[in-house]
């Protein structure tokens, strides 16, 4: 695999929106130049209105550039043939609400000229992949936002594309769905596909992207590998097993000998996402487990004998709320 092969080439791309009289209203993109390489996950970052979605739509030919050039999979953005190898998940899932999941995927499969047998095979596969087997015959208008994102993703992948463009892929998904989406994006890369995603959820991008571009007011501000951009060259971080106060003092003395100083000493915390996923996993393994606050009336637990109480531990009250939410998600998988 030639990872330096550019799947997307953008050169001096600018886009201005004009009013009725042809006067420039806003310049959404200013002379953007970048390449996306084959087999990488590329993130477009930026605050709202920075030009991420405009770039995406220029790549897809939904907007026409005011100046500059776009080449995607070696073709012009306006060339319809390129779409054979592209999958696109829009920011909102702009699907036909009156169709059900099967009909939706069948429709898009037919647009790719797939045979009936091939469509059936892929419909089963992708509905299973995005976890919508239980709702495959329900009209999309009855879907929750998360479910709509999932079917949107399935339609983007129905043609087994070489290049996947994902516009805010985790929007509307619960943490489990977000994790699944991120896993899927990584899996796509492992299969040799190129993924371009734009998002303003920085944690999502940091976890999955190989390279990122940061846009602000239509201009490219940063471009590079994630770890390179995040690495702080002038500082060093040590991570050890738990130390007592005496040991910490000794470490400080040693460091001072070498002209360095300890800035902070703390116990590392995991992320909320990690805690959430861990709690949900435990709930699945032990269905009766629940959190009971210390000051809860004694008879509350007696009434529900089958429930295994877990007293307050080191967990904060916020953890309890997250667990409660996770439990409710377990009961109603369709709800977000």
């Amino acid at each position, binding site marked *: 695999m030639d990872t330096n092969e550019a799947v997307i080439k953008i050169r001096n791309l600018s886009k201005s929106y004009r009013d009725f009289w042809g006067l420039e209203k806003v310049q959404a993109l200013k002379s953007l130049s970048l390449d996306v390489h084959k087999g990488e996950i590329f993130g477009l970052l930026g605050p709202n209105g920075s030009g991420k979605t405009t770039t995406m739509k220029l790549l*897809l030919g939904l907007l026409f550039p005011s100046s500059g050039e776009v080449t995607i999979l070696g073709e012009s953005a306006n060339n319809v043939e390129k*779409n054979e190898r592209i999958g696109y998940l829009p920011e909102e899932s702009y*699907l036909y609400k009156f169709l059900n999941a099967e009909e939706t995927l069948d*429709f898009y499969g037919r647009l790719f000229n797939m045979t009936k047998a091939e469509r059936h095979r892929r419909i089963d596969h992708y509905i299973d992949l995005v976890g919508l087997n239980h709702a495959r015959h329900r009209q999309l208008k009855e879907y929750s936002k998360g479910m709509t994102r999932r079917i949107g993703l399935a339609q983007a992948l129905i043609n087994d594309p070489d290049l996947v463009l994902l516009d805010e892929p985790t929007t509307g998904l619960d943490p489990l769905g977000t994790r699944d989406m991120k896993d899927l994006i990584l899996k796509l890369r492992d299969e040799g596909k190129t993924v371009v995603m734009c998002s303003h959820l920085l944690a999502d991008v940091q976890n999955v992207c190989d390279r990122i571009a940061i846009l602000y007011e239509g201009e490219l501000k940063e471009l590079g590998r994630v770890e390179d951009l995040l690495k702080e060259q002038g500082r060093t971080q040590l991570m050890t097993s738990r130390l007592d106060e005496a040991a910490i003092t000794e470490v400080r003395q040693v460091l001072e000998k070498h002209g360095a100083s300890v800035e902070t000493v703390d116990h590392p915390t995991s992320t909320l996402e990690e805690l959430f996923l861990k709690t949900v996993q435990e709930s699945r393994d032990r269905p009766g487990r629940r959190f009971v606050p210390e000051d809860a009336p004694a008879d509350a637990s007696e009434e529900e004998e089958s429930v295994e109480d877990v007293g307050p531990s080191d967990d904060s009250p916020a953890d309890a709320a997250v667990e409660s939410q996770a439990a409710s998600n377990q009961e109603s998988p369709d709800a977000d």
Partner: protein
Amino acid sequence: MSFDYEPFDFLVEAGNWAIRLGSFLLLVVVLACLLSLQKHKTAGPRLVFSWIQRFLRDLMQVSFRRVGAIAQLTFRESVRRKALWVFGIFALLFMFGSWFLDDPNNRVDLQVKNYISFVLTAITWLILPVVILLSCWGLPEDIRNRSLHTVVTKPARKTEIVIGRVVGFGTLMTILVLIMGVAGFFWIDREVAHSLNTFSETLVEGGVEKSVAMVSGDDGVTVTVTVDEAPTVTTAASRSALRQESPEVYELAERARLKALNRFLVAKRPVYGILSFKGADGRPTEKGVNTGDVWEYRTYIEGGNQWRAIWDFENVGDESGSDSWLLESSFEAFRTHKGNDISKSLLLQYSLTRVRRRVFQDATGRMISAAVVRKAGDEAFEAHVDGQTVSVQPVSVSARAVEVRDNRYVLVSDPLVVVDMTEELRVPLSSFNISEFGENVTALKSEIDFYDQESGESKKLKLEDLINDQGELRIEVACLDSGQYLGMARRDLFIKLPSNRFVVGYSKAIFTVWLMLVLVVTLGVTSSCFLKGPIAMLLTFNFLIVGQGFRQFLEKIVGGEVDGGGPLESIIRIVRQINLTDDLPDTLFYNAVATIDEFLNQGLFIVQNIIPDFRNFRVAPYVANGFDVPWSQALAPSIGVTLAYLIPCLIVGYYSLSLRELEHK
């Protein structure tokens, strides 16, 4: 029989269409090149041609599977938007329509006319709003909801989107038309049968002729069966009582009712001739007498003198071997006095004539007027032209090539050339009293007995002997009542071919309605490619209204037949209160106004050529009046108009979707 008064030649029409469309496209391409030069400099024209190339490539690569997918999506969308609720309104109309249409005092044929007109109008105007709404709102809604983004980012071509949309809405509309058409047919059949309370028919059973007459009303049913002039009367309280009490009579009456029903529900196949007149002096004249009607649809011939209405039927030679022909006519009487008996209708006589029409031309092919030609021998003719005598040859011309001007038969192509007309044979038929408010049917047998006034003898003649070498037959109509007038129009007399069944004419009318709706769907989808829903709907509706109701007015304005000048001149006349018929002063200002109006008129000329002529789809009167829908006058033009708009609409739709930013609102 394969003759038509105005045959519709698809090849010629297709050629005209191609020339017009080609000229229009050429103009658009030139304009596009000029505009692109301004924006993209020298690369502009190349860009324009690359877009043309792209369209052709997209057209060649249209995938039926993708078109089918988009069509199915469109169909599902329409159904789920409750488009089929229109059936509810349709059912309501049919359930209660007869309350308002039934009129026991009306003649059955007029009631039949009401039922058929009602059904065809109801089908057209119930489906029209539905298809206009759906076809005009579909794409703009998809663009607004951005659902189209997920389609255009797949390998779906813009041509496929436009075709798929048209096919999808067309399929829905076809289902609506089919179901309503079938329901309408059975409703008409039932209503007409219900209206048929009084009838009299002759049945032949086992070689025995039976005359069956039935009168039914609130006071019971009376059936009179007459065999060998011996009537048998059967009465019953109701038809069901008759069925129980006298099943044989009931069965006979039902068969007679069915026959009567077929007489009213029929698709007559007329063959029309070319109408001209002869005046009181026996010389040809363009029109008959105007008896005071503003509407000159019919003009009149005076009775008891040399006034004649003349119909020339073309290409009837092929059918001359038929056993008999039927001549059907319906003339309007205008009486200047009561006559001997006011209750007696006017007397009319047909004369069959074999005529020979010819013009003369010299050796160079130059046409010579028959007025200067004289016979030089048995077969030789000579003419004096510019003081010289030249020999000329006779050339036969058809009735179509001839018209009347200044009381002379002249060539349509060159009115200065007089047509030499010779009556070779004339056969006057027996006179008869006309039915002034109904049809007169006369049988022309293959062998005709007639009284030759010149020899004073009765003679026999074969019908084919009256047809000239060009297969033409002339029928002259005379009114024999002195001082009375008979009104004639071209369609008042025709040769009646064996009628088709009503279902044939009705199906053709439904097919024409379907064609019109296909055109509306195509226009709706096309306009929705570049306009938002409400505006697209307004545009399509305007096309329909102007193309149907104001087309003639538009033609008159473009043709300069409307007094008062163009729009600017009209405004000036209104403001300055200048009469329509007054000439405007010959000043620079008014000349400039006239020039601007002329320019605007050119714009109207383009509009006239863009708006489809929806009048071609107006076939309900044919069926309602018991006629088949003619191929040349109705069916072929409506097919032609619908086909003619498909390709231009596809081109407009394709470029509208391709050259706009779908995301940009």
